[in-house]
């Protein structure tokens, strides 16, 4: 699907100025990235001081608010309320979704029944359904779990399905030639071959689930970190509001990047595809 953050040495790529060329490529890219972060923060600071808008806090104000919320436990309390339903929801979809995807991959009947449905769920703006959840699950824990499940299921199911279907035919034929039973084929060849994509699906599902939790908090349940955003906006405390948003971006990127690294180590791609 999407590329990793690193571009391979691009063919015919432009060369960096003399001074930079002296450093190793890896160090150079880290340096440039750090520089870009500082640049963005500087622009942010500037924008807040002009000010671009009364509702736009400078970076320093946001950072101060961030620090304050970290220290006084606001973040802790809010994230506790968000992460709980998120983990429960992803655990549910993880188990059920992977099972469903694997089943669809192995059984033509299950594939026939399930594939169109999940493709539609993946493409449709399921977010529209979130406000409806209150009618059944109220405004608490269960409602958030449902939102998480709603948004994360399609990607987990489809990735598991694709992982199974992408097992190289030659490996399956080989296992048939050496007289593998159906179970042996599934356990020893198909599932190991699919494990990389299954894990990738779980990672993407976690990201989608987080979106679902935030959406639920913005629309229906007045708890958690999404609610921090709504609350501070209503109080016109924009520095705290931006701090909350920043925390969400940080938590999401750090977690997903760590999971990507884990994926690289556990499911080394060169070990999966021949």
């Amino acid at each position, binding site marked *: 699907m999407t590329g990793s953050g690193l571009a391979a040495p691009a063919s015919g790529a432009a060369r*960096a100025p003399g001074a930079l060329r002296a450093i190793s490529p890896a160090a150079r890219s880290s340096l440039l990235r750090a520089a870009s972060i500082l640049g963005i923060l500087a622009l942010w600071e500037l924008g807040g001081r002009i000010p671009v808008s009364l509702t736009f806090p400078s970076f320093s104000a946001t950072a101060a608010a961030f620090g304050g919320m970290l220290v006084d436990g606001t973040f802790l309390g809010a994230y506790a309320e968000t992460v709980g339903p998120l983990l429960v929801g992803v655990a549910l979809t993880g188990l059920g979704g992977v099972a469903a995807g694997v089943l669809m991959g192995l059984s033509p009947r299950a594939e026939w029944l399930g594939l169109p449905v999940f493709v539609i769920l993946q*493409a449709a703006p399921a977010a529209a359904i979130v406000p409806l959840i209150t009618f059944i699950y109220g405004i608490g824990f269960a409602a958030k779990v449902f939102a998480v499940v709603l948004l994360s299921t399609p990607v987990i199911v489809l990735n598991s399905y694709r992982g199974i279907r992408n097992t190289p035919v030659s490996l399956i034929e080989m296992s048939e030639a050496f007289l593998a039973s159906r179970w042996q084929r599934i356990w020893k060849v198909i599932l190991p071959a699919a494990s990389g994509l299954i894990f990738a699906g779980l990672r993407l599902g976690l990201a989608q689930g987080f979106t679902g939790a935030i959406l639920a908090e913005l629309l229906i349940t007045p708890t958690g970190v999404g609610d921090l955003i709504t609350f501070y906006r209503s109080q016109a405390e924009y520095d705290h509001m931006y701090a909350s948003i920043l925390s969400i971006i940080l938590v999401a990127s750090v977690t997903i990047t760590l999971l990507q690294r884990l994926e690289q180590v556990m499911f080394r791609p060169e070990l999966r595809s021949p």
Partner: protein
Amino acid sequence: MTIAGRRVPMALSLLVWFALWEVIGRAELVFLIPPFTDVLVAIGSVATSERFAGAAMITLQAFGIGMGLALTFGIGAGFLMGRVRAFGDVLGMWANIFESSPLTAIVPAMMALLGFGLPTMIVTVFLFSVWVIALDTQVGVTHVTQSLLEMGRSFGASRRQLLLKIVLLAALPEILAGIRLGLIRGVKGVVIGQLLIAIVGIGYLFERYSRNFLMAEFWALLIIVFAFAYAASETVAYFERKVAFYATTR
């Protein structure tokens, strides 16, 4: 799958699900789920209503402008990222950060900054779709084989010719894949944006139908929006299949 030896197309399984929907609706098991036939009828009435026309207008405007911007900047950035290593490292980092973050959280800030109208919606569509377009373009561009470029240079191609005659075409399948995904995310973006803004467009309509328990109309609207997103993405997918062989590496 096959029944009695003849292949049954997968789309037909939807009929099974629709039948299930009808049964659940008729039995009134869940009040949120009316009979499917009611929903079908409602599609007609919703699509022809004035409210829908107005909502669709503003939604399509926001979607069109936002996607246009996302395509321009996304493909452009993707090219830069693929051809110049420095840009690839830096912009790639940002794109990956935003691509996996719940961008929904940014929308309230946009609303405070830009108000409750078209600008916020356009920015939301842009932010939801641009990252995947840029990243997929980058992948497509970096996967152009070295030998193809060397061949072009050996025949005296200028930089511009290399870009337009070789790189663009060889990367095209991947770029189209990014556009297809970007379209779907753009639709999600415009819907989420409008749900949060709540007083305009399709989002407002959704909110109105659910508030008044007009469930058949609600599902009808959801089906219409999905149909639009699906039609757009399948159109791109059609072209993607047609040019898939542009990316053969040997």
